[in-house]
């Protein structure tokens, strides 16, 4: 495949990436957008059988009209010298050279291990939703939705609509915290109405606050879930458990470009949180971050940051500066939201048993790592985080359980086949 070159490369085709591409291409820039999924729209706009609608379709239509090159099923796996990335798509690898890059890789669910969570029948909350959107038939299945975060209501509403029998939504945040967030949402237009709409869509489903899943039971398949509230544990018989603990940014590509492409410049990382677009503009002119990877805040924040990054990358600075007030308001709500759905470490640790698997790739149990000082030591002793997912699941779990930082990444950031690399030649060849 011939070398690709683009003025502005957007990595990630969710709300932030699409908004960025729209802004930059509408100002005459040549833009390429890549996304790992077979369809654009990201997780929030994931469509049933890939048929986009609404805002997602509107943006994609503009991009097509503007001549934006869109490459689905394409993963950024490494950073190369001279402002290039190595991408893999359909079994082939190829470099993409860029003048500027906008990283909009979004977020993933945060998973917290509990005894039995590796049983078939246990899914992520957004995970089950994605699989149902992909065609999984859940008609008549008894489902417990659990964990924490605004996603739980949306997932429960969707699963109910698709014929699932949602028994309960077990939210770990307290009622007091949720009421406070409800009040904060009144200050952001649309947020309160959105929450009300979801509550109406989930009418008839018990919303149990201050409730934590403590175990998944079953011999070969999930049979029941233990939920603890006010010190009392009840067993709920069910077919499926959809459990996720809010979101965490996909920072791998940002880390990759920081360490391997831009020596001497730093992406300011606080825990899993990459720098905001503003910090980036200040630090250097070629790399922008937008959307959930730069702080969990929802679709409006992602659209705004994406648009802003797109304009800035296109050199339309006057326009890019006009977002401060809106950004501050959305940022404030995002902080309130993230505080509401914060996890309490002691509660989580109480649930763990020595034989609870923490790393699903390497089957490493809690008892093997609980006395380690940090992630690196645990890794060296047990192989935790060294399997196929490269710590994407157990890393954020360990951060929640032990406060361990896991911000290290080395290419390729997803496992590759030799055949995928075989067609890629270096300049020396």
């Amino acid at each position, binding site marked *: 495949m011939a070398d690709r070159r683009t003025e502005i490369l957007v990595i990630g085709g969710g709300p932030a990436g699409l908004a960025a591409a729209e802004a930059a291409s509408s100002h005459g820039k040549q833009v390429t957008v890549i996304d790992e*999924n*077979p369809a654009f729209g990201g997780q929030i706009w994931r469509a049933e059988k890939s048929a986009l609608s609404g805002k997602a379709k509107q943006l994609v239509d503009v991009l097509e009209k503007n001549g934006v090159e869109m490459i689905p099923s394409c993963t950024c796996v490494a950073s190369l010298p001279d402002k290039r990335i190595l991408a893999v798509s359909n079994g082939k690898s190829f470099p993409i050279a860029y003048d500027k890059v906008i990283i909009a890789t979004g977020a993933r669910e945060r998973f917290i291990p509990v005894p039995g969570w*590796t049983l078939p029948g246990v899914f992520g909350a*957004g*995970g089950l939703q*994605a*699989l149902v959107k*992909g*065609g*999984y038939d859940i008609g008549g299945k008894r489902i417990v939705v659990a964990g924490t975060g605004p996603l739980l209501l949306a997932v429960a509403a969707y699963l109910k609509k698709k014929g699932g029998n949602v028994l309960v939504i077990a939210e770990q945040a307290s009622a007091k915290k949720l009421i406070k967030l409800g009040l904060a949402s009144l200050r952001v237009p649309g947020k309160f109405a959105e929450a009300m709409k979801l509550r109406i869509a989930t009418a008839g489903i018990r919303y149990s606050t201050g409730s934590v899943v403590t175990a998944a039971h079953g011999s070969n398949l999930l049979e029941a879930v233990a939920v603890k509230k006010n010190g009392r544990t009840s067993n709920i018989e069910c077919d499926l458990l959809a459990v996720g603990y809010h979101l965490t940014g996909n920072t791998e590509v940002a880390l990759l470009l920081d360490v391997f492409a831009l020596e001497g410049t730093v992406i300011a990382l606080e825990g899993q949180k990459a720098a905001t677009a503003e910090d980036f503009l200040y630090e250097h002119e070629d790399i922008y971050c937008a959307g959930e990877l730069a702080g969990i805040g929802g679709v409006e924040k992602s659209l705004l940051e994406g648009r802003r990054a797109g304009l800035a990358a296109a050199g339309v600075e006057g326009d890019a500066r006009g977002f401060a007030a809106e950004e501050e308001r959305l940022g404030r709500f995002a902080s309130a939201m993230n505080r509401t759905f914060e996890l309490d470490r002691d509660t989580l640790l109480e649930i763990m048993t020595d034989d609870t698997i923490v790393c699903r790739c390497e089957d490493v149990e809690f008892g093997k790592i609980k006395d380690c000082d940090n992630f690196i030591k645990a890794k060296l002793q047990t192989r935790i985080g060294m399997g196929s997912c490269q710590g994407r699941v157990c890393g954020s779990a360990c951060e929640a359980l032990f406060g361990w930082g896991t911000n290290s990444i080395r290419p390729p950031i997803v496992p590759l086949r030799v055949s995928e690399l075989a067609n890629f030649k270096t300049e020396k060849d």
Partner: protein
Amino acid sequence: MSENLKIKIDGAEHETAAGTIVASALLNAGITAFRTSVKGEPRVPLCGMGICFECRVTIDGVANVRSCLEPVCDGMEIETGG
């Protein structure tokens, strides 16, 4: 989109709607071991979005493909449990 495709799961023929994601088609077929873990446990997808790698299967002879990222194609042959 109502058109049905023929796929093979572990040698057995199945029909599935066009546009279905492979992982979803496997769940519909009742597969409870997409892969076998290091210690021999059966596993199914967790994240549904290409992060956890629990859904990997062999598709048309290519091993370790994330089935949550692949739409089904007519005649596709999928092997699970590896």
